[in-house]
């Protein structure tokens, strides 16, 4: 038992000693959203104050919300994290503090085409600053991705998908409702225009007549 606890403790410490915060935000965030989706769906299902008619929309909306939330959270966070890394690597985004160094070096090197933007930062201080920025920008992009996914993309997508499902459902052929046999007095009303012989052959026996004293033959 002690060995299991020690192993678990070590694994938790190892996971949390992970240097890549961007990945950390993505993984823990995805698990977190999956768990809360289950809870919120239950909150709608077991709420007696929400009418059945509204639940028909709200429960699928909640399930779709969860599925989309988890998928989009993972995808957008990963993409934006990658975008953050590439943007700094390609020199599309740089820290303001390195602006003067960059412009000065770029002026001197206008005749050449450096393969990588870190070429401009040729002393250890500026290079360190550039590398630090590259790391922090990737984490910040990851966080921005998570906000965009949760607050904007997911609610729009879930409404579109919920509507799509509703349209799909309405186009599905409806199940034929079982028809209850008509009670004899209704049959009588329907058949009273018939002649007695025909009526008896359709509706039945003398017992029926005694059951319905209003029946005139």
């Amino acid at each position, binding site marked *: 038992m002690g060995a299991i606890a020690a192993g678990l403790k070590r694994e938790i410490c190892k996971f949390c000693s992970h240097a890549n915060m961007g990945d950390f935000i993505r993984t823990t965030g995805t698990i977190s959203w999956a768990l809360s989706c289950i*809870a*919120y769906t239950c909150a709608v299902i077991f709420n007696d104050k929400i009418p059945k*008619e*509204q639940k028909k929309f709200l429960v699928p909306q909640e399930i779709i919300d969860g599925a989309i939330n988890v998928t989009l959270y993972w995808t957008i966070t990963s993409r934006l994290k990658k975008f953050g890394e590439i943007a700094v690597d390609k020199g*599309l985004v740089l*820290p303001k503090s390195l*602006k003067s160094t960059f412009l000065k070096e770029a002026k001197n090197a206008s005749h050449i085409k450096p393969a990588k933007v870190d070429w401009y930062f040729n002393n250890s201080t500026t290079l360190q600053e550039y590398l630090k920025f590259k790391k922090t920008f990737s984490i910040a992009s990851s966080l921005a991705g998570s906000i965009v996914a949760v607050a904007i993309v997911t*609610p729009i997508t879930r409404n579109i998908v919920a509507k799509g499902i509703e349209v799909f459902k309405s186009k599905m052929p409806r199940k034929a409702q079982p028809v209850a046999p008509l009670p004899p007095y209704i049959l009588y009303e329907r058949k009273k225009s018939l002649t007695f012989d025909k009526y008896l052959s359709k509706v039945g026996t003398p017992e029926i007549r005694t059951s319905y004293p209003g029946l005139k033959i």
Partner: protein
Amino acid sequence: MKLPSGANMPIFVPSKIVTKLSNLSGWEQRGLTGCVAIITQPTIDALNPWIDKKTRNYSVAKTTTKALVGMTVGVSVRYLTEKISKILVENNILEIVKKDGIREITDKQFIKNLGIFFGVLACVFTNFIFDMPMTKAGINWCVEKFKLDKEPEKK
């Protein structure tokens, strides 16, 4: 300013803001996401053109309650787990695992990571203990306060 052929002028962003964003702890991240979600999510639901007015009202009430409850519980839980993680690290109960003998992160960052991790684990329970009943109570309050069960008046 002429740059080498094929190169674009970069967008220069203040590194202070980027550093601040990247250093946010778990509860701060949850709070930031929650604040944006409280504004955007109900607005998006209120503008949903594909449902009737009554369902839309329910949808907005549900989304607003969910965002508020989710943020409150999420921030509180993560704040507490970070405090607990700090105590565990300070008392050497949990320690950084070095990779090839190199310490990859600082103690502060390690505490933040532990806080986020334990926060996620705690959510397994808090989602059902707090989020679910609070969301239900919040929706019911909205139904009664704004009379959502009544048919909306047609203009």
